[in-house]
């Protein structure tokens, strides 16, 4: 089944760093990436964040590249479409297909490269967050946003039961494959239906059981949310500011520049 990045974050050496610092670093990178018109900025962001993830958070490099490859199919297809359709002017190259002339213009190629770099930058920011900050830390951040408590409670319990149901789904899936449940398209579909049904009923029952056990512990509409105070170290602050400065300078100097 899919890699649950949260499991790495729980054990990450950066887990107990200040949440707000990590979130500012990530938000800064995301915003710099989507606002820049030059692929260099998101590319720089990608390099810095990947370095932080591999070096500071000690994520194995092969695993990290496997993660980066995950969105590849969507990104490549979309980037190719953009390259062919976007931008006017002289084509860099073109060919005829079924009577249509398809070609890639300079602007189109630039845009495609920009989108590719932005996705890369964005994904590396997201991976940094996912691999160093477990969801349980982010709940206290969400709490600070003043969203209603019911929303937060549902989000927290949902978090917990995602893992319970993933185990269930895994268990059922193994049991089905042992009895040849995924040998071809038809059996796969049939197995999926049964898996979905089993999961649905199990989750419904689970919901009722949790309510009984919550009430047995005097449920009065309150779930505790952790709120640890973790000061930002001076060295961390300097490193972050250097990174911010580097990205802002690149942003400034590459305005209007294009790669091709």
């Amino acid at each position, binding site marked *: 089944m899919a890699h649950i990045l949260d499991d790495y974050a729980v054990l990450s050496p950066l887990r107990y760093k200040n949440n707000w610092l990590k979130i500012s670093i990530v938000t800064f990178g995301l915003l710099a990436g989507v606002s820049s018109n030059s692929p260099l900025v998101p590319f720089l962001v990608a390099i810095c964040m990947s370095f932080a993830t591999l070096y500071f958070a000690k994520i194995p490099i092969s695993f990290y590249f496997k993660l980066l490859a995950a969105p590849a199919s969507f990104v490549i297809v979309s980037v190719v479409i953009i390259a062919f359709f976007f931008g006017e002017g002289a084509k860099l190259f073109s060919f005829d297909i079924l009577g249509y002339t398809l070609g890639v213009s300079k602007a189109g190629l630039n845009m495609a490269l920009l989108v590719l770099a932005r996705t890369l930058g964005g994904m590396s920011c997201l991976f940094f967050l996912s691999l160093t900050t*477990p969801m349980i830390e982010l709940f206290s951040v969400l709490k600070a946003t003043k969203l209603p408590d019911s929303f937060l409670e549902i989000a927290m319990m949902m978090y917990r039961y995602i893992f319970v149901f993933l185990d269930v789904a895994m268990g059922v899936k193994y049991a089905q494959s042992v009895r040849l449940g995924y040998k071809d398209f038809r059996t796969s579909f049939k197995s999926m239906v049964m898996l979905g049904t089993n999961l649905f009923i199990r989750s419904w029952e689970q919901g009722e059981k949790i309510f009984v*056990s919550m009430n*047995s*512990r005097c449920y*009065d509409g*309150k779930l505790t949310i952790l709120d640890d105070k973790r000061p930002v170290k001076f060295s961390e602050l300097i490193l972050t500011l250097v990174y911010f400065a580097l990205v802002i300078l690149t942003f400034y100097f590459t305005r209007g520049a294009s790669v091709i």
Partner: protein
Amino acid sequence: MIILETKNLSFSYPDGTLALDNINISIEKGKKIAFVGRNGSGKSTLFLSMNGTHRPKKGEILFHGESMKYDSKSLRDVRKNIGIVFQNSDDQIFAPTIYQDVAFGPTNLGYPKDKVESIVNNTLEYVGLTHLKDKPPHHLSGGQKKRVAIAGIVAMDPELIILDEPLANLDPVGADEVMDLLNELNYFGKTIIISTHDVDLAYGWADYVFLMNEHKVISEGTPESIFMDEENLKTAYLRRPVTLEIYEEIKRRGLVKPQCCPRDIPDLVHSLRSQQLLWAKVPSEVKEGDYINL
């Protein structure tokens, strides 16, 4: 002193199936009590009646001599004092971290923040899980989860702790840790009730046993009296505890001192006649099976 009593307690599920049939029991303070019976004999339903989750159809439940009321204030009071640890830890642990889960009870009791904090830290220390407090529950082993579930109840400081099949699915190490914890809790004054279909466990651990079958309590008493009565055990589809079974066989051969009922293996061994009494010098030509004149 009697904490909890039921009088002619009967309960049926909304679909009409009878779940408890005229139960009359009293739970004494400070005891280790086991409800023994096969799955489906009504143990879990009885427990959920004891803390007011199921409202009896007939009869009543007395908590400290007072008939249980079902308004939300009285229920809170009962549930603060009667904690239930469910069989499946995943039903019970719903918060995203161990700390938050143990804090759930105290927070909902309306304690101030620093009191909650000190309670949770003490409780986690007590069950030996302080090092896991920031972990999500799915990173824990079965035995650790069970101890978290117990901690969540202990944090509310109830008088009576009820555990439904506390050792289900635990391996020997996990089971030992849980039983040690229960004994310690009992030693410091908590009344403990467990349900189990493991006769060896109930026989070795409990002070007092209720035998259940088909939604009824069919007998009650000391473990010795309950587990010596083979007739009743058969009715409940259970067998004798292993140590007792072996003891009986050895006794029939006259190999034990005439005192009753060893509770565990060391006990059984102690009840054996000492070697000296049985040691006999035998001429070397005697073969096994021969009679010799002593």
